[in-house]
């Protein structure tokens, strides 16, 4: 077996600078643009949180899950079930409960799936996610194929005092930004912690980890649960923003998209997942808006253009957009080798 490639874990200065500029841009964005784009960027940030949660498994631990959307959807549905038709429900207990539901589902599913490796892991994660998808799709009580509406965004008031109003578009934007930054800082801290180092070492050589005395099952299950919980945060915010929860939230497409986001940005450092999610969502928007030329509706075939683009990235920038940035910043070859 080929030696696993080293991840770009220590972010080069060029990348850190870009992230800082990006954060500043995000901080002022709602004042620079209209409601449409504010909502679009809110959605991008939610997807970035989701992609980062997958990166913990895919990039750091080397577990490629093709069913990660299940945990995204479960939190969205939890919010939908908890929100009455005629009034909002409190943020302060529904958010923890939604995240806990996702975490619990991840714990149970993880208990079975993290025993498998490689291609089998991909297959069983997909199988479990499809089971959950059809459970919701086929049951009218659970919303069926149409899903459920969330008529009111959660209420953030505490003992009669309202610190912020999530019904407000810009407030929701900033709440999402705070969550994004919080998740990123948490995951970066985790990456260098003893737990994170153990996960990275499991990706590189799980057999050696067992021989050294690590209970790798426990580490992988903890990571799977943690990733599920964080996907839950994203799913809750998605439900809150869009006002509905439907089976697509746990569908195969969203799972596949999140994998593409992580690959597109560059795996194993969480910054890549953010960049990948923004790039993916933006391209999705661009490709879908393509005009009809000579009777061919280019916009309708956005998946084709996205496919070409991903292939091009994998060929010319195998370490993703961040890897490309690192390479341009240092004058390195496509696989990170130095030219000296």
């Amino acid at each position, binding site marked *: 077996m080929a*030696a696993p490639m080293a*991840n770009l874990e220590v972010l080069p200065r060029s990348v850190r600078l870009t992230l800082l500029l990006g954060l500043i841009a995000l901080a002022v964005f709602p004042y620079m643009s209209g409601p449409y784009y504010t909502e679009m960027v809110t959605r991008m940030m939610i997807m970035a949180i989701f992609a980062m949660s997958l990166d913990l498994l895919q990039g750091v631990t080397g577990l490629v899950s093709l069913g990660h959307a299940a945990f995204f959807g479960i939190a969205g549905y939890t919010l939908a079930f908890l929100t009455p038709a005629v009034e909002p429900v409190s943020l302060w207990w529904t958010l923890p409960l939604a995240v806990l539901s996702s975490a619990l589902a991840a714990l149970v599913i993880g208990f079975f799936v993290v025993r498998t490796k490689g291609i089998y892991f991909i297959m069983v994660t997909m199988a479990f996610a499809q089971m959950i998808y059809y459970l919701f799709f086929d049951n009218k009580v659970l919303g069926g194929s149409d899903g459920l509406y969330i008529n009111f965004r959660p209420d953030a008031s505490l003992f009669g005092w309202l610190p912020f109003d999530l019904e407000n578009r810009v407030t929701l934007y900033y709440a999402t930004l705070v969550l994004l930054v919080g998740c990123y800082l948490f995951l970066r801290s985790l990456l*260098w912690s003893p737990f994170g180092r153990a996960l990275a*070492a499991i990706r590189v050589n799980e057999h*050696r980890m067992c021989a*050294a005395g690590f209970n790798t099952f426990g580490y992988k299950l*903890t990571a799977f649960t943690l990733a599920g919980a964080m996907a839950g945060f994203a799913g809750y915010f998605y439900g809150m923003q869009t006002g509905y929860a439907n089976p697509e939230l746990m569908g195969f497409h969203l799972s596949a998209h999140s994998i593409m986001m992580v690959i597109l940005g560059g795996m194993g450092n969480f910054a890549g997942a953010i960049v990948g999610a923004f790039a993916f969502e933006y391209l999705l928007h661009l490709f879908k808006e393509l005009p009809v030329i000579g009777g061919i509706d280019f916009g309708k075939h956005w998946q084709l253009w996205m496919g070409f683009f991903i292939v091009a990235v994998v060929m010319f920038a195998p370490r993703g957009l961040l890897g490309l940035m690192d390479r341009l910043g240092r004058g390195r070859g496509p696989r990170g080798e130095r030219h000296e």
Partner: protein
Amino acid sequence: MNEVMMSASALTKRYGGLAAVSGVSVDLWHGAIHAVIGPNGAGKSTLTNLLSGDVSPTSGRIMLGGQDVTGWSPDRISRQRLGRSYQKTNIFAPFTVWENVRLASQSREPHFTSWFSDTRKNQPGFKTINERAERAIELAGLEERRNAIAGAASHGEQRQLEIAMTLATEPTVLLLDEPLAGMGVAEAARMVELLLKLKQDHAMLLVEHDMDAVFALADHLTVMVNGQVIAGGLPTQVRADAKVRAAYLGEES
């Protein structure tokens, strides 16, 4: 004075009709090296894998530190203070030498929920882990190479790293599968010296093809052919054994 740290009795591993290891018993004494020799395919590596839990025996019993560890998983056996090195170098290639050893040392304390401390910084919580890793690096003679990427180190250094990683888990029993494989003369001599030093406070099983090293190091010798023990005892006795000369030593010289 000396005690048996690990003992395997009547170990058998069958793959279908083939018995890779058949009725093998070994005792590993504290402060002594038990060498296992035999031609290729004799079942030496399978025996090592049985003792470390990588392979579970078809029958037989394994005792380690007073516990019956038969059928235990490799990580659990490792935590019962057994360390092993591999015939084929088995390291974390993209990480630094230091990180390889530090990780091995970290294994002695579970860290499922330590998410907020930075292993790159010398935080007080990491004192035990880092000191243990430090000692292992020094013992293996890798102080100069701690910041090198393990995968880019020389073959000999990678063999030393294997030993350092094994030592960082503070085992009482060491299983070393061909630690001298592919080493130059000078490197091999250094390794023999290191193994002699380690012998003082470990029980050791040594699988090795280098007969000079084996006779320099071993206190007990087991000779395997086709999964079975054909001779065992003190190195001098084994050397004089006619069966061994015919089956193995004769071919070597």
